[in-house]
């Protein structure tokens, strides 16, 4: 899996003091000698610090902190799809394409993203603002179709609503996350209702 070719790797990486403190807190959760268990937390911190992706230097830094061989860190980082091993845009758009979202129109969202951002899944826009990937179930099927942008879920989308979200992000705003049709959580759309009892 030649995940890390065709772009520049930063020469070095080190946690900032604040993030290092968080990393130490994560390590402290595990018994002595088992500090390698904190690897997911540290990789996540490293990914956030380096702008949404994990450079090789960051993996080596984590390996050094945890006393692991770099290959062991590399194995973990490549196993989990939520770690990005190549640079992503400032807004990393993850489009759900599993059955419920697909039934509710995720293909239209994909078409919109490709047209709007000018990139294919796996790509990154020229201005570095957006990157797009298709992912499997994000776990919010009740409010399908769903798109995850960085840490936020945008739900109950259709092409127009997604376009508004993307436009807002491009302008530097932070559109309200969650359902884009205004429902609370995954409460029923429209008036509250209860299923009728059998035979009623």
């Amino acid at each position, binding site marked *: 899996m030649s995940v890390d070719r065709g772009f520049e790797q930063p020469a070095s990486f080190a946690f900032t003091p604040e993030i290092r403190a968080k990393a130490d807190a994560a390590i402290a959760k595990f018994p002595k000698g088992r500090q390698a268990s904190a690897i997911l937390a540290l990789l996540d911190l490293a990914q956030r610090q380096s702008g949404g992706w994990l450079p090789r230097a960051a993996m080596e830094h984590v390996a050094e902190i945890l006393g692991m061989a*770099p290959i062991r860190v590399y194995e973990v980082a490549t*196993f989990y799809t939520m770690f990005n091993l190549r640079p992503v845009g400032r807004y990393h758009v993850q489009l759900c394409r599993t059955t419920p979202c697909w039934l509710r129109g995720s293909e239209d969202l994909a078409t919109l993203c490709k047209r709007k951002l000018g990139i294919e899944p796996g790509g990154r826009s020229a201005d570095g603002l957006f990157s797009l990937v298709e992912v499997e179930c994000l776990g919010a099927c009740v409010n399908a179709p769903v798109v995850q942008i960085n840490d936020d879920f945008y739900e109950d989308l259709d092409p127009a609503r997604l376009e508004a979200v993307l436009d807002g992000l491009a302008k530097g705003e932070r559109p309200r996350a969650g359902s884009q049709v205004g429902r609370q959580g995954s409460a029923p759309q429209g008036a509250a209702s209860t299923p009728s009892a059998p035979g009623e």
Partner: protein
Amino acid sequence: MPKLTIDGTAIEVEAGLTVLQACELAGAEIPRFCYHERLSIASNCRMCLVEMEKSPKPIASCAMPAADGMVIHTDTATVRKARKGVMEFLLINHPLDCPICDQGGECDLQDQAMAYGFDRSRFNENKRAVADKEFGPLIKTVMTRCIHCTRCIRFATEVAGVEELGAIGRGEHMEVVTYVDKMVTSELSGNIIDLCPVGALTSKPYAFAARPWELRETESIDVSDAVGCHIRIDARGREVMRVLPRLCEEINEEWISDKTRFAVDGLRRQRLDRPYLRKEGKLTPVGWPEALAAVGARLTGSAPQRIAAIAGDLADVEAMMALKDLMQALGSPHLDCRQDDAPFDPAARASWLFNTTIAGIEQADACLIIGSNPRWEAPIVNARLRKRFLRGGFKVAALGPKVDLTYGVEWLGASPGTLKDLADGQGFAEVLKAASHPMLILGAGAVARPDGAAVLGLAREIAERCGMVREGWNGFNLLHTAAARVGGLEIGFTPGAGGRDLQRILAAAGAGEMEVVYLLGADEIDMTRLGRAFVVYQGHHGDAGAHRADAILPGAAYTEKDATYVNMEGRPQQTRLAAYPPGEAREDWTIIRALSDAVGRRLPYDNLVQLRRRIHEAYPRLGRLRAIEPAAWQTFGAETAAVTGEPFRSPIENFYMTDPIGRASETMAACTERLLGRRGTGTHG
């Protein structure tokens, strides 16, 4: 001890065994890819499925602990169907390239597909293809063939102790890689070729060279270091094609070092295949009669006191014995097999043996390494130390240049002065004293120096004061680097009464007091110090000795003769002829026997049996093959105050080129260049 029933037979097995091991004991063969006795259990190939009563599904026998009352069936319709299913999945992405695959004919997957394979493919989707990886100059990769058994990863991590291999990605995207295109840097890396059950990892130097059914297998002994690994030499016609390990629990288990495995291409290059005499300053090919007559005339024409013999690192016991007999017949006491100038006394056997034995390392619980880098000097011993370390409760400290030994080591610096502190009971000596089975490993390089005898004496003091020597346990070990050394010391190939040792032979030769110096494969001495002496070189490679020689008598390499070598533990073992020596080269003892005729002092043996009888009568130990006779403890070494401040160094500067065979090998030159980042310095073309 659990009792279980396997295929209708009741069997009681040791607690802690797996169902697979129990099945093997019961005589049922279980197919497997990922399981290997010496590696941790991964249980990911699923080929070893068996049926267990009361279990709704077949179980992976390699990972299931054998328990009381289990009823196992290894050959039912369900089991066969399950294994066929597993095999079909394994073959989905495995290319049908057996005709161009080097593993063909010795491939686990091929063999098991004969038993469990499906004769056509039902998989119409895309097949995956994987980019090949660069593992270095020794290992060729065809990663599309990989079935992800992870044996190579587990070997590198557990046995070799280099965490360089790993599996990235998951599911169909899983790949075995090194960390971002690095090469595998272990000295044991070649073993992953043997471990690979398919053709994903094959030998790069041996690529497309031969098929297994063309090869003639010969069981033999390795001489690239003093460990004496058991090997199998595969030859085709006159050519040695490859070397593989043989199982030997006492020594190498089933591993060999890369030098043992890959240096064999050196056997084809730089060979001495006919006698030479220096005429008018130039080495000129001559026939045997002329060469023997010329050397004989020199030997008879010189006073016995002006003749000396030096045996090199690859000399076998038979040749050394014959040469010693010849020197005695001529009346010269000047002979030495200690090419590195180490001050060993043949009488003090305990001082130059690995007394604990290699398998005995597993009983030790503390170890002091003095002036040695076992990872380079004896990779198999280092693997055993690591194996012991992984079991826990094993403290190791080392004096010498800091290197990565693949296990936790407390570094005490490189100064010999620390030895005195240890002998006085300070520092790590406390740990050694508290241990129940303490041991020390003294490097050959630590005693091959002017104050070597004093270092030896200090090490003896440490051993005695830390309780390393007692009934049933001897923790004093000398780690030799040369295959010939222990054999030479056993037969006393050392100066006789009034004889000169190596340094004094060289000094005398430089001063013109030595007229003839006979080098039996001795290449590691300083040839410039031989002065104007007439140098006879008997050996198999055109290395340093042959370049200096005035007469060259071409001998046989270890693959080309039946010969005895004694390993560092004092274990006599025999090599077997796998291919004939090239050209007019002859087995070494026969050359000396022929020479004895030319000097008119015929040695009393006409064949190998008679020569061996002569050796066994004089040195009965050497007649007991593979057996170890513990050495009696005695005082040895010199006055300890003589130890200088000169830091310890390893005698090996380049792991891959320690003998003439390695120096002639292109593969070893490639390793030197690519793995050590150095230019080859041997005499290779």
